[in-house]
């Protein structure tokens, strides 16, 4: 049975739909209303407040911490300045991705790593002979994400520092209603946004402060369904859905390299050795065998198929996570899409798909399976650049 997060007393008051899911062993609100629209539009037009406590967190500290993390992460963590946050992935010795997340340099010798899966055991495998301590802090820290165009205004009100100064992917210590917190300008919605990290003892106090500050800005508590739509619009991958932790794969073909996932930009090969480097050198020179791409699924064709049966076009009200086959022009299967959504703001039908490399070029026309009146049909899907939605304000 899942357990409540430190914000549960507040989120459960708002969750009139009683729609919860088990996220890493915690009760997490899927959507406060029966449908996630209101929460989605709050995130895109005003601000949404999401309880992201279940995200795994791990504290890495000690004199050797920077060098240690640089050995494991595909990015050179030692180069991070204090207060900077890096989004990156990490691989096993064969260059297959274990997980992705953020690494925040909180202090010269103190880092916080967030991840989709617990990572203490994995990180510890490389700590021999290094002066470093690795501790799981998931259950000690409450985490809230304020996301949306007005999130800065809300954050400014609650925080005792000028949040306006905080750059994209930076973090800073701060106080909210007398409580010590860390605020980082990060998020999983592809919008302007902040995440607040607080000792679970004071979690409710911070929630209340944020909610009351957000009153004038349309701030709404938002659930995972709304966040899922936004993360697909932002082109963000989800470990366990779009790809799999290499340690959790029974067969090789399920594992992925950073180049396949579009994480190639993170991989810094021209530095000292790090875990998986040798394999990644080979992978880079050979080129990935498949690619994780964004698909834009033709809506007119979709609607036309339904019209053949005299039906209006059907579409799921939330993002989907089932695996759907993707075909080439000549009809052979060349990949699969593992998540997708109707984008209410773009008015487009989107998917994140893994396809054989030759089919992954931008502009490639593929066929996407649609079930219409119990029949399997296909519609055109075009490979497009990610993110699908990328507002200026995210970085500004």
């Amino acid at each position, binding site marked *: *049975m899942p357990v409540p997060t430190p914000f549960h007393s507040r989120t459960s008051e708002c969750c009139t739909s009683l729609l919860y899911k088990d996220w890493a*062993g915690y009760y997490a609100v899927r959507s406060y209303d029966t449908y996630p629209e209101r929460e989605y539009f709050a995130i895109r037009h005003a601000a949404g407040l999401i309880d992201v406590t279940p995200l795994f967190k791990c504290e890495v500290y000690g004199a050797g911490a920077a060098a240690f993390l640089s050995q494991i992460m595909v990015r050179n963590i030692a180069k991070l300045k204090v207060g900077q946050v890096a989004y990156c992935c990490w691989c096993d010795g064969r260059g297959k991705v274990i997980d992705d997340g953020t690494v925040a340099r909180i202090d010269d010798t103190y880092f916080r790593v967030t991840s989709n899966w*617990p990572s203490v055991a994995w990180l510890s495998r490389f700590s021999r002979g290094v002066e470093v301590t690795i501790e799981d802090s998931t259950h000690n820290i409450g985490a809230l994400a304020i996301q949306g165009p007005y999130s800065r205004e809300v954050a400014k009100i609650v925080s005792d520092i000028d949040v306006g100064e905080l750059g994209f992917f930076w973090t800073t210590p701060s106080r909210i209603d007398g409580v010590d917190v860390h605020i980082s300008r990060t998020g999983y919605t592809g919008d302007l946004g902040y995440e607040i990290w607080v000792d679970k003892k004071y979690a409710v106090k911070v929630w209340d402060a944020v909610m009351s500050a957000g009153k004038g800005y349309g701030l709404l508590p938002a659930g995972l369904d709304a966040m899922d739509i936004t993360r697909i619009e932002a082109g963000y991958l989800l470990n366990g859905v779009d790809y799999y932790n290499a340690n959790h794969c029974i067969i090789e073909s399920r594992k992925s390299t950073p180049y396949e996932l579009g994480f190639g930009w993170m991989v810094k090969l021209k530095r000292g050795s790090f875990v998986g480097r040798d394999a990644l050198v080979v992978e880079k020179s050979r080129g990935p065998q498949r690619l994780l791409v964004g698909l834009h699924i033709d809506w007119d064709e979709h609607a036309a198929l339904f019209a053949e049966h005299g039906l209006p076009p059907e579409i799921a009200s939330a993002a989907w996570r089932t695996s759907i086959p993707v075909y080439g022009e000549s009809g052979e299967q060349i990949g699969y899409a593992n998540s997708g959504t109707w984008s209410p703001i773009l008015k487009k039908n989107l998917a994140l798909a893994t396809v054989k490399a030759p089919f992954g070029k931008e502009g490639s026309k593929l066929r996407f399976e649609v079930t219409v009146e119990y029949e399997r049909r296909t519609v055109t899907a075009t490979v497009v650049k990610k993110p699908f939605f990328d507002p200026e304000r995210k970085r500004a």
Partner: protein
Amino acid sequence: MPKTYDAIIVGGGHNGLVCAAYLAKAGKKVLVLEKQHVLGGAASTDEPFPGFKFSLYSYVVSLFRPHIIRELDLPSHGLEIIPLECSFLPLPDGDSLCRWADPNLTRREIARFSQKDAEVYPEFGMAMMKMAYFVKRIIDAPAPDPLSNSPAELINLLRLGRYLSSFGPDVMYQQFKMLTMSAVDFLDEWFESDILKAPMSVSGIIGTFLGVRSPGTAYVLLHHYMGEIDGAFRAWGFAKGGTGGVSLACGSAARAFGAEIRTKAKVEKFIIKNGSCDGVVLENGEEIHAQSVFSCLDPHRTFFKMAGEEHFDDDFIRQLKRYKLRGSSGKVNLAVDRFPDFSCRPGDGAHVRGDIAIAPSIDYLERAYDEAKYGDFSRRPYINVVIPSLVDPSVAPPGKHVVSCFVQYAPYDIKEGPEHWPERKEAFGDAVVDTLAEYCPTLKDSILYRQIHTPWDMERDIGLTEGNIFQGELSLEQLLFLRPAVGWSRYRTPLKNLWVCGSAAHPGGGLMGSPGELAAKTYLGSLKGPQ
């Protein structure tokens, strides 16, 4: 002389009944002879105390092959398996560990003892699952024989080799290690916490006279992951109405296919004429003849007692004489008038509705083994407790419970000599109850009735030589093509028309049904033509 039956099956345990059902299904005229008044042998249920149904010996259904359930349609004969919900480890210091089907819950439980172990636990499960395919291939087919010169065997061997190497070197290496390593060494490679390793390691020693640190005990760890690849989520469970339910369902299926089953029919001797086994003589002198005789007794009983040494060559006899039986476990069944609360985690919640292990540390288990090595039962034994009445109300009156304790170690060969077990029996029962009472303080006062089975009792009551529940230790030199003797792992025996179909045949003991099934199928295959 008229041959009245195609086959007589000596012993109405689950393997004998499975064998009978398959033979009858193929149209053979089959007779099963069981000496007890109930069917099931080591897998039987009885009501020795009014209102309380005890699974006398075997207590959980683990590896019973799903395809046998399908092929014999056992559910329509009353087989129902209720899954175990949890593995619960109470600890003497008031703490405890539960492992659940819910991975997140299990992770949190383990993390209290080791964060790293909690994270690695699912990865371990994955690795085991991969390897369980290998075991499946081994237990679902007759053992390959590397010493045979027949081309069919060589091809079979090559095919198996190719199948194994298709898993890649990693899995093969792990497999090789599992076959030879100790359970503790193998778990040490993955985990750091004793609290987690101790209850996991015990699956490697059940029914063997070995400790958790003895090499060769790692292999059985895999059995816990077999359910996953059989497509039967959480395959371990209680048979409704007690473990005898499995045997009764097999018996009912056999009858439905036309087999005849007689209980209280004790076989005294096989009838052997001109080097061929023609039938059996019962205790009352009745002679019954058949084309073939299938024995699901252990090798000592089959070859020395029922057939007679004189019918076999020296080499075969020598092999059987060194075949290790060495019973090492006992069983204590308790009828109690209220639920025995565990002080570390009170209440009759889901945590006690699975198996409960008294195995607080690896040293504890090793010490229990050390006592047994030198000819005594363990004062503080490993106990596997189940309380089936919590999930199956049919086995105890309302509010009352059946507490089944599988106990290790209780060596057959105690230093006074096995015949002195009757004098030690109550002391053994006390040791078990005392141990358990350390975790359940109210237990002693609630006991209405206590039933104790020592290895000596098992030998006398259900004919398991030396009280070995697997009819022979499951150690590598007694498995595969070596079980029960070199060259005779294919259910035939050196004696014409005598077959074996019990746990002493490949793939061995446990509530699997495989030896019975494979013996029947091999026999039926041999009728179709020369091998």
